[in-house]
């Protein structure tokens, strides 16, 4: 698993990259009450805003970590946004991204580096 500075986790599943937010991020956000998911089958640029998460406190964006095509979104989050707090690293993935070259993930942090970053 890889991690971004924006507190997203990236997991490789076949030729896809599954994206979610870390437990640390979920805790900082507080109780999530709304998730706006992207349209499947859309191309997204690296760093573009793909999802919106609203917690009781504020709205935050989830960015596409790399360029690719969104091929699946987790509809469960629309009905049960609280899943983000219950199981951020597992059930509560946000979208799956098809990328040309999985090698782009090498640039991201591994778990130890991420833990160092959040202290």
């Amino acid at each position, binding site marked *: 698993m890889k991690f971004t500075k924006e507190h997203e986790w990236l997991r490789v599943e076949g030729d896809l990259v599954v994206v979610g937010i870390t437990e640390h991020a979920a805790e900082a956000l*507080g*109780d999530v*009450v*709304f998730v*706006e998911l992207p349209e499947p089958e859309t191309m997204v640029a690296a760093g573009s805003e793909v999802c*919106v998460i*609203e917690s*009781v*406190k*504020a*709205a935050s964006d989830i960015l596409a970590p790399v360029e690719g095509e969104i091929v699946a979104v987790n509809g469960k989050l*629309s009905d049960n*946004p609280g899943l983000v707090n219950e199981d951020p690293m597992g059930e509560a993935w946000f979208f799956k991204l098809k990328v040309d070259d999985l090698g782009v993930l090498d640039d991201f942090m591994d778990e130890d580096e991420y833990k160092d970053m959040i202290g």
Partner: protein
Amino acid sequence: MSDLLRLPLHELHVGLGGKMVPFAGYEMPVQYPSGVMKEHLHTRAAAGLFDVSHMGQVILRPKTDMAGLALALERLMPVDVLGLAQGRQRYGIFTDDTGGILDDLMFANRGSHFFLVVNAARKAHDFAHLEQHLADVATIEVQRERALLAVQGPLAETALSRLEPGVAAMKFMDSAIFLTEFGEIWVSRSGYTGEDGFEISVHPGGALELARALLAMEEVLPIGLGARDSLRLEAGLCLYGHDIDATTSPVEAGLAWAIQKARRAGGARAGGFPGAARILRELDDGPERQRVGLRPAGRAPMREDTALFATDGTPLGTVTSGGFGPSVGEPVAMGYVPASHAAIGSALEGEVRGKRLPVTVAAMPFYPTHYKR
């Protein structure tokens, strides 16, 4: 956060795991480890303890008589002060010459004096305002030391009456003084959540022990500013600087209920407050725009500053407070729209991240209030 003031119970909040954030010049707990949602729901189900010591507390002691001071206060507020019985508290509004709201407050008649509680962000303004207008008729005793705690929720009476049985006999908006093991406590049966409950002014020497005694009870959890805001929003209560300010009149803000008969046209002491021309006119003819409750159709919250439109695209106004209502289970909001679009059930649109989403004008409170009348 070095420029920020600290609450008398700062160490308690930190010890409880409170996440401290800057608010109105103070370091305040926005939430505790249980989180905003649980804190909100716990307050509605049992009892929550809030530290609101950042608010301004002031005693106005008449130099001659209470009636003269009451009339002087009536020259600052469109509210019946003279008619307020001893031992009772009332909601007040300082207005300016244009009819805008300078602050909203609570004031109590305590027989020999009035006791006022004003918004933290308006303390400096209000104390100067009182000094400027009332110095001839009252001594103005700012209570800088006293803490202010609120116990709110259906079990607030159960909890607080264990420490002071006398509070159980109080009714909504009663104000009383009790001598307790925590020193003299000044109690009113009121709050900012829509629930039954009490606000307790206590000397800092007794505040920590009082807070600890309440938190030791299984009904009581500490509640931060986050849940305080969602609770008051569901109750349809205004937050100064957001839902009301110097650009909004009390009538526009839906606070006409706070203007008693005595101060209205034909009343015993009609007018005679700042902005009377506009406020009395709006009471008669209706305001041009109104604060309304808003229920977004979807699950996306419409937060403060969300632009509101008619379904034909005409800009109408903005959301002044909005978020998710944990007890309602859906987003709720309030904002200003022209009177033409203020009827309950009016279909509007709010712009969230570039998209116009449906929202309906709805009655407030969004969640039923439970005051002990």
